[in-house]
């Protein structure tokens, strides 16, 4: 009985925390959108090259913050709303995201690319949620990759599991063993704040794990000598095999 009460109390506490976070995220949208508009207005005027570079950084930073607030408000609606899942070509989706994030990566002296597959794979997902997960991983990779390196999006089929994995590989400092253990533990015990890397709250990864879970998928990470791959794994679509 005590265990049950404790569990419910904890759940209510988590729910309250998420609600407060969502409300805060929504409140932040207006000032962030205003900052972005003011920066766009400034950029459209007569400014020096250096001023233009700085104003573009304000625009890109406010857009990054707006994506996070949007993800937070979206995650709060997961339980309330039904959403469609459909067969999706993740490579095409990744290419769209690359086009959208190219200015941000360029401003940070990095690039983003998709590894091409000659035989496209399909997975079953909600387009909006999958897009948010990949954007999130890309954002994470941007800030932990070395300047001058390329972040790669890779799509592989895991035939035994019947899933497709979309991974975002960055090239940066290796995660310490201690940090890696913490990350693995947190990835398996959501909802909690996931400490993705040093100096990160891991909020973005926590949201990504919620989105993946809502689609019966999982997220995870692979540690490399020179960086990491964060991935989402979702059910493969059988649409092509039925043709």
């Amino acid at each position: 009985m005590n265990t049950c009460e404790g569990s419910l109390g904890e759940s209510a506490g988590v729910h309250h925390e998420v609600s407060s976070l969502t409300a805060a995220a929504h409140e932040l949208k207006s000032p962030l959108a205003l900052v972005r508009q003011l920066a766009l207005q400034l950029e459209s005027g007569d400014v020096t090259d250096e001023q233009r570079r700085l104003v573009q950084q304000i625009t890109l930073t406010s857009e990054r913050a707006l994506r996070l607030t949007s993800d937070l408000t979206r995650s709060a609606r997961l339980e309330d709303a039904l959403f469609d899942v459909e067969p999706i070509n993740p490579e095409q989706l990744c290419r769209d995201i690359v086009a959208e994030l190219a200015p941000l990566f360029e401003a940070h002296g990095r690039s983003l690319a998709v590894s091409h597959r000659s035989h496209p794979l399909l997975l079953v997902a909600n387009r909006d949620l999958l897009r948010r997960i990949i954007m999130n991983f890309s954002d994470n990779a941007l800030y932990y990759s070395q300047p001058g390196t390329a972040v790669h999006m890779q799509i592989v089929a895991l035939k035994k599991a019947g899933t497709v994995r979309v991974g975002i590989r960055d090239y940066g400092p290796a995660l310490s063993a201690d940090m890696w253990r913490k990350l693995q533990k947190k990835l398996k015990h959501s909802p909690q704040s996931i400490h993705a890397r040093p100096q990160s709250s891991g909020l973005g990864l926590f949201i990504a794990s919620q989105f993946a879970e809502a689609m019966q998928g999982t997220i995870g990470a692979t540690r490399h000598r020179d960086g990491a791959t964060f991935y989402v794994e979702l059910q493969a679509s059988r649409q092509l095999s039925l043709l």
Partner: protein
Amino acid sequence: MTKVLLVEDDPWLAELEAGILTKAGYDVTLSPHAPSAIVAIDSVKPDVIILDVLLTGSTAFALMHELQSYGDTHATPIILCTNMAENLKLEDLASYGVKRIVDKTTMQLDDLPAAIRGVLL
């Protein structure tokens, strides 16, 4: 000259948007909230209304509901300009006279003039 009523409760954003619209050749009237918008609609008779959703006091929905109940305002096209665009569907709002939804979090400087041109075609 096309008359635009801009209902926006953030004064800095209102000033910025009004500046863009004026530069684009529109005659802009600003209202910071729903009650002042009703007064402005009576006096200005706008060709199009640009409306924020979460206003101080009454929301845009109360205002739109009221406009739909009057014979001389129910056909005035409305463009919602909001931070809540991802939560709204145009087809759900068509009966309120909403013709376009512009997302404040992603809009570019020329999106509002383009939306006006689109609804007045």
